[in-house]
């Protein structure tokens, strides 16, 4: 085990921090929120040019051959700046699901375009009844003469506005298991409603009313999509957790600074022991969360499938709850100013609230963990 960055990893972090400092000052972010949905095309170009979209993809498919650790380094820095570009939705969730689920020929054709940012794909898997979990899937893909007809609904599709295509999870009648399809965003019968989230980002809710796709839209084999989908989701959850580590770091820094300058009763409020202790608790929560992220990374690298997903669920629950506590207390320690739109800390809290809902809530993952644990104990 090694907690130090290699020189390459350090370079990656440095380049991201420079980007975030420049493109995501509070003022710049506020302007971006007003101007467009999910950041700007120009910024997305910077993601592509710097290789951040290809970092964790194999060289065989136009990637840099890195790993989930690179994804984590990137996501953590993006979290510090509450970056709006859809790195999580397109750069991680969709890309890693393609990597896990598509056939060799499909990977060769699609991934290089994903890696260089020219083809944007989003993952449409969650439904009102599955709440961020990969199952159950209600959306139906009925076989037609030369393809499939899709009917159903997908909620909370991250990175959907501006995406060229969606990976859609579906149930093929009489074929057990989950199947994945690649559906172009502009196909007939697909209705996309663009919806805002609390943190200022945008998603889409997709309604499939008999969308016709060709046979080759099926990714990999019929009924065999679940392992790839779970692999993509696990990568996405780890990235989201890393993002929250960055958000907590920033919240702590901003709050500690404020406690030094804000005066009440003739002294800096940081001289009150109750606030010192609270800040210490927040810092401890952050470090426990960071360690939990490391647990997830270790498990993703070393464990077999069932253990991997149990561990990742545990980290999602622990880190999301830590983030809600740390960012919520960031507001509390600021008093009234923390409640305002014009001030930074409230926006970190909003992201923490959204992150808790995304990719399955803390309660959902706690239940998933408990079920996995029960299975272990039964065996």
């Amino acid at each position, binding site marked *: 085990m090694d907690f130090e960055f290699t020189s390459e990893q350090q370079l990656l972090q440095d380049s991201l921090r420079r980007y975030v400092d420049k493109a995501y000052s509070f003022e710049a972010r506020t302007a971006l929120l007003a101007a467009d949905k999910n950041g700007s095309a120009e910024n997305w170009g910077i993601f592509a040019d710097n290789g951040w979209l290809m970092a964790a993809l194999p060289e065989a498919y136009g990637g840099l051959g890195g790993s989930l650790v690179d994804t984590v380094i990137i996501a953590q820095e993006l979290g510090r700046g509450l970056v709006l570009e859809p790195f999580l939705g397109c750069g991680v969730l969709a890309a890693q699901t393609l990597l896990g689920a598509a056939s060799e020929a499909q990977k060769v054709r699609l991934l290089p375009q994903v890696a260089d940012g020219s083809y944007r794909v989003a993952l449409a898997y*969650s439904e*009102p*009844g*599955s*709440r*961020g979990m990969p*199952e*159950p899937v209600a959306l139906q893909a009925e076989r037609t003469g030369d393809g499939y007809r899709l009917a159903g609904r997908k*909620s*909370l599709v991250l990175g959907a506005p501006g995406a060229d295509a969606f990976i859609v999870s579906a149930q093929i009648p009489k074929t057990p298991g989950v199947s994945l399809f690649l559906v172009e965003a502009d196909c007939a019968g697909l209705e996309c*409603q663009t*919806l*805002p*989230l*609390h943190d200022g980002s945008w*998603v889409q*809710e997709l309604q499939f009313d008999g969308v016709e796709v060709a046979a080759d839209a099926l990714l990999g084999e019929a009924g065999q999509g679940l392992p790839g989908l779970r692999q993509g989701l696990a990568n996405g959850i780890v990235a989201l957790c890393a993002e929250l580590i960055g958000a907590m770091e920033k919240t702590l820094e901003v709050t500690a600074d404020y406690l030094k300058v804000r*005066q*009440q*009763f*003739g002294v800096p409020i940081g001289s*009150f022991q*109750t*606030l010192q202790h609270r800040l210490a608790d927040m810092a401890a929560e952050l470090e426990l969360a960071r360690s939990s992220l490391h647990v997830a990374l270790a498990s993703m690298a070393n464990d077999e499938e069932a253990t991997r997903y149990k561990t990742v669920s545990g980290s999602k629950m622990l880190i999301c709850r830590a983030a*809600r506590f740390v960012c*919520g207390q960031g*507001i*509390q320690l600021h*008093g*009234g100013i*923390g*409640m*305002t*739109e*014009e001030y930074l800390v*409230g*926006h970190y*809290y*909003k992201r923490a*609230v*959204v992150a*808790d*809902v*995304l990719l399955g*809530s*803390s*309660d*959902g993952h*706690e*239940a998933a963990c408990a079920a996995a644990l029960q299975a272990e104990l039964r065996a």
Partner: protein
Amino acid sequence: MDFRPDASLEVFRQEVRQFLRDQVPADLKGQQRCTRSPREQIMRWQKLLNERGWGAPYWPKEHGGTGWTVPQILVFDDECSLAGTPTQDGFVHKMLGPVLNAFATPDQKAEHLPAVFNGERLWCQGFSEPGAGSDLASLRTRAERDGDCYVVNGQKIWTSYAHHADWIFLLVRTDPQVKKQAGISFLLVDMRTPGITVRPIRSIDDAHHLNETFFDNVRVPVGNLIGSEGQGWSITKFLLNNEHATTADLPELKRYMRELRLIGTTLQVAGKPLFERPEFALKLARLEAELQAIEMLVQRVARLDEQQNPASHTLGSMLKIRATELQQRMTEAQIEALGDYGAIAYAHPHEADPQQPFPLQALARGISNDMFLRRASTIYGGTSEVQRGIIAKMLFQL
């Protein structure tokens, strides 16, 4: 000690229900959920209550109030919340009103009370300043005597609903020479007076409740002083002690529980109602037990208050801490219960409907606005940290 139900309370409940059913027009019922209604609705609702003789539901009879007991008040609040009526102007009913009843001259009462009862005048609270939050006594807004006026200069902040208010009750410094608490006075100011500027502050619940309020040579008749010069601090302590039960916001807590149950029975997860999920049911069970205890605590604090027992202050602080935390956890639980839709920023209940309705809009709208606004519950009305300090000091002499 006796916990048997009080039959007369049920009679009272029927009376309130009948009023709500027969005398309240449909457009004042079934309102969108919110912590404070728009100005016009507050005014219409107040007028209607007054016509029924219920213009001041929380005040004793000798001040024109209903003289209801605490259990009656809880029933009234509950039934109004169930019917979805507008809110009243809490600033005047729960804060300024008791102050006027206790400290105002007959002339001042004659000037202000009729407008409170018939709903023609809404109030806001001008205490906090940029440099004076928890340390309220360090406030700097000055009021200098000039003939039969005070000339007010300074700035207030976090003035909730100043943009809807006709009048403001204000803490000002009338004597900068004496100990800081002793130099504070309590003034009533007409918001239309020249020299007052109100600037909006948007809060993280995506709404405009808060304001900065500036005073630039604002001339206020000396007759608008409540009590005597320098008495402002003791009046404020009187007022803030009344605030604990209000900040607990029991009717809202109960509404949150009703909504959680509704979400639990309405939404489906993996083909079954949400309430069948153990993680949801366990959480609801915990919240319900806490809510019941809070409801009892509200009544204990109120009873001690009635008896003017000083123990009500520490118990009130405990109530404030725990009830506001429960507000936060219940609204967070609502967000979680909404599943994927917990992340969606629905239009604020007071804003226009979106062109194309959002999915689940009828059930989910307003929930997140409340949840974000509830982060402030542990900040306003004396922060939780300050309340804990009060408890340690008063209860244990630490």
